[in-house]
């Protein structure tokens, strides 16, 4: 009998991580777009790195970083009683880092493609940068934001390497759907692996369908 735990865990991880990511990515993308600081290329590179690195590399270093045998992991465990390796919390942090570029890039390119005059017009009306972002810029790039949310959500559901390195394979804690498939195949339970895989295909299909459906509607909305 197939256990639905890994699917639920995957969705839970994706929902929590995407929500936090959205809140993180908007200020980062805004800063990258409008900053004239000389640190800009460095920040941009760091944000984009997880996209090109093999997930196992990221997972490996996070594993060392969070391990109680190393300073940060030791500090967290000693003083805060938090252990991030092989835990759901660790999965969230690893997924945040891994998916950051998938959320930041679309929002950033959405902002960069807006005419500068939109922002300047709002500033000249006496509006603060925050109000300008909230009322003028973000509503103008709704489709980019939706793209970012969907890409990172789907990416987290499908991620395997980072999750395996940092989370391992603990039922109901870190065994997400992608890991469960691998696990079932190893145990030669092809039927179960197939069920998980089909469910993942279905979820991905629905998510992307929603994206294209809503993005089409946003565009229609703007020309109404």
């Amino acid at each position: 009998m197939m256990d639905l735990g890994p699917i639920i865990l995957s969705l839970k991880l994706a929902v929590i991580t995407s929500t936090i990511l959205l809140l993180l990515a908007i200020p980062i993308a805004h800063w990258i777009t409008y900053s004239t600081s000389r640190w800009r290329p460095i920040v941009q590179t760091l944000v984009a790195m997880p996209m090109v690195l093999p997930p196992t590399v990221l997972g490996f270093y996070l594993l060392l970083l969070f391990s109680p045998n190393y300073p940060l992991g030791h500090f967290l465990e000693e003083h805060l009683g938090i252990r991030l390796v092989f835990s759901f919390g660790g999965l969230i942090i690893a997924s945040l880092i891994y998916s950051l570029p998938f959320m930041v890039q679309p929002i950033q390119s959405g902002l960069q493609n807006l005419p500068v005059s939109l922002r300047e017009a709002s500033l000249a009306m006496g509006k603060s940068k925050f109000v300008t972002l909230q009322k003028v810029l973000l509503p103008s790039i709704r489709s980019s934001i939706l793209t970012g949310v969907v890409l990172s959500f789907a990416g987290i559901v499908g991620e395997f390497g980072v999750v395996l390195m940092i989370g391992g394979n603990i039922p109901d804690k870190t065994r997400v759907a992608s890991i469960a498939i691998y696990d079932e195949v190893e145990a030669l339970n092809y039927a179960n692996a197939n069920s998980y895989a089909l469910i993942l295909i279905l979820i991905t299909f629905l998510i992307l369908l929603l994206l294209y459906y809503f993005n089409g509607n946003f565009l229609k909305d703007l020309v109404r």
Partner: protein
Amino acid sequence: MIRCNIEKELAGNLGTFMLNVDFSLERHKTLALFGASGVGKTSILRMVAGLMDPDKGRIEVNGKVWFDKELRINLSPQVRKVGYVFQDYALFPAMTVLQNIRYAAGDQGEDIVQELIDLMELGELKNRRPALLSGGQKQRVALARAVAQRPNLLLLDEPLAALDAELRLKLQEHLMRITKQFELTSILVSHDLPEIFKMADRVVRISNGRVVEEGEPEDVFANDQVSGKFQFIGQVYELEHQDLNSIVRILVGHQMVRVVIDLTLGNTLAPGDRVLVATKAFNPVVQKIV
């Protein structure tokens, strides 16, 4: 009263050049900035609005210092609160016409929003989004929006450049109506002589990064070589060449006039050229229209 004396190094088509301008403008008047493209007219507006920092100089508006390099004063665009009509209109795409104007009006209240919608004849369009508006309609919204915050100063960056001649004339009327009604002080960037004559009280002509002439439009654009007293500046609309003569139709203000000129002169003209139309030998007849 506006006093502006600024210096800024700008990147142009032929490398960097120094923009160094000095001008002033009385309250409730309109100043036109005139000059070839790339001469830095838009940069002047941006520096006045606080969207670009001058390298040196001072900008003072109605007794208040907005920028002074030596005193290290540089008010943010939010504090300067100028009404800015951008070349691309910069209407907020996710907001309707009404929301665009309301957003700009802020705490000025609903009265001014309604007044502007009536004045700019936007009632029918107020629930549309900018993507569905024509160029002239966008222009009217941009104008209403720039005035909605009751700005200290209205800056217009070639506001009518993208529109055809007929629409231009209509919008010039709108623009004049709005500046009069709200007693605005404005700076207008324009390439169009008839527009400058119609709307500007003063004109500053910029060349090679400097003010080469400043004064009333009639003085700045008067051609000293013509002695006739009766003269207008117009724009060539259409040319028709014949054996010895050319028939040229010239737009002077609202009026189209038809003039027969020598073919050799006719061959040097093209539609869109600016010309001076003057009579030399005859005294014009003036009749009162009842």
